[in-house]
């Protein structure tokens, strides 16, 4: 009787061993992973902050006053499409032209093309400016990323569009956010025009 009970106990222990030990090992492994120290090599928040400050100063020195205030207040830039003349533009025959399309430039997000008159979103252009140097290889400061996109768009729009991956709106940038940003932009422009007068508004919008 005792022998039978002992044998049964051994079998139960062996079966439990098979079940419990792998589970314990998995738990220990998870614990080790969670406790593993993440070494952030080369990351210095102070350096990043100073880099962003320099980048903002550089951006401010390159774009016009309206664009700088737009970025400062709203967090994005609007750039008119090269084939558009912007609001209040004039064609060669003296007629008034509209702005067929424009872009919104966000830091480290795709460029969003839209139609200013209707607010319709056209496409997203995914573009990156990655440094290939071995010591950095990271991302540009936010304002440098915006400036790089601005320079690429205003300097050679076709080339930049050719380099970018084009997607339908909404792939990465939430269309609701873009529409909200366009609404904010409209309100911001109206306030700015009130502040500076209609003359500053018409001149500064280019």
């Amino acid at each position, binding site marked *: 009787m005792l022998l039978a009970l002992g044998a049964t106990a051994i079998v139960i222990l062996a079966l439990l061993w098979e079940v419990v030990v792998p589970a314990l090992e998995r738990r220990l492994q998870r614990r080790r992973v969670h406790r593993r120290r993440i070494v952030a090599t*080369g990351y*210095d928040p102070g*350096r*990043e902050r*100073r*880099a*962003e*400050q*320099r*980048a903002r*100063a*550089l951006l401010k*020195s*390159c*774009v*016009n006053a309206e*664009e700088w205030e737009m970025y400062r207040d709203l967090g994005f830039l609007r750039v008119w499409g090269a084939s558009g003349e912007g609001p209040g533009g004039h064609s060669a025959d003296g007629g008034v032209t509209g702005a067929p399309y424009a872009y919104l430039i966000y830091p480290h997000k*795709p460029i969003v093309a839209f139609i200013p008159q209707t607010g319709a979103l056209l496409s997203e252009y*995914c*573009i*990156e*400016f*990655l*440094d*290939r*140097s071995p010591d*950095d*290889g*990271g*991302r*540009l*400061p936010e304002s*440098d990323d915006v*400036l*790089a996109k*601005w*320079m*690429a768009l*205003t*300097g*050679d729009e076709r*080339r*930049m569009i050719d*380099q*970018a*991956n084009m997607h339908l709106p909404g792939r990465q940038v939430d269309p609701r956010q873009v529409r909200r940003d366009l609404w904010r932009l409209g309100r911001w422009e109206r306030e700015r025009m009130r502040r500076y007068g209609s003359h500053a508004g018409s*001149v500064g919008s*280019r």
Partner: protein
Amino acid sequence: MQPGHGEVLLAEGDVSIPAEERELIEAFRAQLDAGMWAAVPLTADSGRRQAELVRSFDEVPRSAERVIFFPRAAGGR
């Protein structure tokens, strides 16, 4: 422009002085060889601010105050 650093001054000089112009040309070529794009911020006749992408030092307007180098654009995800 450099990740983690922002704006970094690479070289400065007066293009009307041959020795300094040579240094500027060397610095310019080194950046383009490293795969950077070069742009000159300009103010158009209409007053509009824009950039001009340049592929050689000869394309840089003589009146330009600075050339900004930034990493080459590539299609993102």
